């Protein structure tokens, strides 16, 4: 199935980048939980579980490399329908965790279908756009199908409710669409209706979500309430100075000031302990992954592979960017994980699948040489 040429062209650099980021994640998680957990058991659990997920993720990644990625072009519809089906099931039979029904439980494994749908949406969009792309760009009339494919999972995820993941889905779809070009008139129309839509949506937001957005606009206005997380996160990051306080020496983290320090705010733990130096290295690692991914997009000699790469890499890009920007108080607090560093099996698996497909596209690029 795999011939020698494929192994020769295996993209070790992308694999190495993913592993380094995952390794940094485990170290940071260890630090995040060790100062805080009163019970020693919990301390072990989180980073060991994350290591386990990274191992499983690597396995899934290898699986995603084995088959020819062009099968995804043919299987786009079934994959998409399956993932939407899972999203519907989760609404009725999902496990509720802190007021939000996101988890599907199968025996010992629980999974968020909303993570999987990010990938299946990219696949079906890549198939559609690769067939119909023209230099003049897509008109509104040609965009109604992609629009519906995007809005179905978006609505299903937002009602869970999980606004953060819903917005990521929207951003990924928008990125892919803009990448394949939209007619100017259509773009302006879509932008305008997007703005109108968010104004209307404001009235449907939950109380805590509104509060977070208001707190972002003026954190000092409510330092005891929603603005509290933002202030604490800034103190943690800022107090790291250039070289940081050192591994396991972060005091803000130790005092459990940081909200959800092992999931969404993991970057503030890292920034406090490793300073500007360490945080920049991590930001640059993500930049390298994104640039490398985009180079795979260029080097792929056929449109489906190119668009698929752009979509997958946009998923990693937006999550990394929004998460870090949120921790640095550049964006309101929305629940978006930092790929491969935040604790969470679903997020790790999805990122590893995406990485696997990118590796797949990268090593099969020579098979299409005209």
């Amino acid at each position, binding site marked *: 199935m795999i011939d020698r040429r494929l192994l020769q062209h295996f993209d070790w650099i992308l694999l190495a980048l993913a592993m380094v980021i995952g390794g940094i994640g485990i170290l940071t998680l260890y630090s995040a939980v060790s100062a805080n957990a009163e019970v020693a058991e919990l301390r072990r659990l989180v980073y060991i579980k994350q290591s386990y997920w990274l191992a499983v993720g690597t396995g899934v990644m290898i699986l995603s490399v084995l088959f020819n990625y062009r099968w995804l072009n043919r299987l786009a519809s079934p994959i998409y329908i399956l993932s939407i089906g899972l999203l519907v099931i989760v609404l009725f039979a999902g496990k509720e965790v802190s007021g939000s029904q996101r988890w599907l439980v199968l025996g010992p494994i629980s999974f968020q279908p909303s993570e999987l749908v990010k990938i299946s949406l990219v696949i079906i969009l890549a198939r559609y756009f690769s067939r119909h792309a023209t230099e003049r760009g897509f008109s509104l009339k040609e965009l109604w199908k992609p629009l519906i494919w995007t809005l179905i999972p978006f609505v299903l995820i937002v009602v869970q409710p999980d606004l953060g993941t819903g917005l990521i889905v929207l951003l990924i779809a928008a990125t892919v669409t803009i990448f394949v070009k939209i007619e100017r008139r259509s773009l302006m129309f879509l932008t305008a209706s997007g703005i109108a839509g968010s104004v209307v949506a404001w009235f449907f937001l939950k109380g805590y979500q509104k509060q977070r957005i208001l707190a972002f606009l003026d954190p000092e206005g409510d330092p005891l309430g929603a603005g*509290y997380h933002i202030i604490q996160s800034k103190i*943690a990051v800022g107090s790291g100075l250039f070289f940081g306080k050192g591994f396991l020496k972060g005091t803000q983290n130790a005092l459990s*000031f940081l909200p959800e320090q092992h999931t969404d705010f993991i970057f503030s733990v890292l920034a406090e302990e490793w300073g500007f130096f360490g945080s920049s290295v991590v930001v640059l690692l993500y930049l390298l992954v994104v640039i490398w991914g985009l180079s795979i997009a260029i080097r792929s000699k056929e449109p489906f592979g190119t668009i698929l790469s752009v979509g997958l890499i946009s998923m990693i890009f937006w999550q990394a960017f929004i998460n*870090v920007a949120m921790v*640095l108080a*550049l964006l309101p607090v929305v629940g978006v994980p930092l790929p491969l560093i935040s604790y969470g099996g679903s997020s790790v698996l999805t990122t590893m699948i995406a990485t696997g497909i990118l590796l797949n596209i990268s090593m099969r690029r020579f098979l299409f040489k005209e």
Partner: protein
Amino acid sequence: MDRYLHTVDSDWYRHRVSGAVIFVLVAFSILLVRLYYLQIIEGDEFRRQSQENCFRLQSITPARGFIFDRNGVLLVENRPSFNVSIISGDAKDPKKVLHKLTELLNIVPETLFARLVEAKGVPSFKPILLMRDVSRDAVAIIEAHRLDLPGIVITVEPTRHYIEDNRASHLLGYLSEISRGELKSGSFPDNKMGDFIGKFGVEKALEPYFHGRRGKQHVEVNAFGLVTRILKTEEAIPGKNIYLTLDIKLQRKVEALLSGKVGTAIAMDPSNGHILAMASSPAYDPNAFAEGMTYELWNNLASDQFHPMENKAIQGQYPPGSTYKIVTAIAGLEEGVITEHTRLFCPGHYRYGNRTFRCWRRGGHGSMNIIDALAQSCDVFFYQVGEKLGVDRLARYANACGLGSPTGIDLDKEANGLVPTSVWKLNRMGIPWQGGETLSVAIGQGFNLVTPVQMLSLISAVANGGIRYKPSVVGRVESPDGSLVEKQLPVALGRFSASTKTLQLIMRGLVDAVNKTTGTGWIVRIPGVNVAGKTGTAQVVALEEDDKGKPLESQPRHLRDHAWFIAFAPAEEPKIAVAVLIEHGGHGSKAAGPVAREMIRTYLRD
């Protein structure tokens, strides 16, 4: 594929990707600039804020759930108490501060230093508990010398308060400080060092319900460690309230009846297994544990010869004496070795091999059927039933009656009791079973051991037609706002292997025991109420011939018999079943009977 390459080619895609690269570079530059701003330009200010350590996380202990009786009478609540702790990071020199503190309060410093040593490894910003439940005077002294005592903090924490002191103390249980082992076990994820958890009784059995969930408070403190601003509070969730099946009025009466005696008295609603009263004497005061048990007091409790810490109702194991004849009667009737018409003659003794087994009535009972034999507790009648049954057949019925294994009551430390069999004896002692031993077992002497709660469960089942309910002490669990969380439904453990007819015969024997002048329980009769019951006098040792017949008072206490009485009433429609055991009380009817009678009278009067 070629068709599409006409419309857009790879150069076109290359061009689009370059646009994306520029976008990504701009986005990540923003992040790097922001990092530079926060960590380098503004960094010193943030470092100062974090170093002054002016933000702290304080833990809020959740209020423990209350305990009520079945009618909603409050039995256990929480009262505020003042605790003194030290935050070593704020104290700068903790030893000096501790010396000052002991000087001011005029106490010995050793225990406080021991606390400090114990807490080695606790982060310097976490409080270490020094003294619990200090007096208001001590609080006033500490407050007045605030500036000399940096790092010393006083917190108000709820302390358990048992309103009627040692009332129902064995059932309610007590709290004590969580041990390191318990913390590490992972069974108490929401607890921290210094917390009090249930260690006995209902307090232990329902610990997860009582605990609730710990809250957190983010505060800003000044250089002395005093809170200047509360930033954010995550309220603690109070624990659940528990409504027991206990009737406190009956419990008070039972404890009054037992006062001065060593033993236990328990009552149950035979229709569902609810425990109405459970007293064990002597008792202890659980408040002493809540206030922090002293070594001396604990030693006194632990070495007391009457074992006040033991719940005799479920932990005490005693020979059942004649109460066991109920089991022998069931087995005999069911196995067909006797019928309701069988009459056996009692001349006052029974010859087995070359041994003579005596009846408690030297002169003999004459000709008896099963009803008379139960009513007058004729030993010779049951020797013969036992002999015909054999020990192993008898044991099967005893097991079916719930003897020899725990009843499964909600409280821990319940004892098994013992139902001897020939195999058991061979394994245990290496000697085969002797036929004569069966005779002793048949009248409840010998190797048999039962707990009072087992006998209560047994007599309840006789009362309700043969269903053994799991004895339960918890009626329902409510959340603090009064909504129902859980309600305990009766759990049937099994059925007696006895026909209705057998049970009716036994019932008649037990009614006659109390209501006929010849019955052994005549003392327990209540005019107007049909009480059914069975006495039991459990020999501790075979008394020396010259001790026999002596008045009880002149026998050495530890050699006197245990007194049993088990009963239920009214016989037609049983509302209460009781089991009373008085250690070394002498004869069952005289020592235990009146207690049983007054319990029934009190309960049925209300």
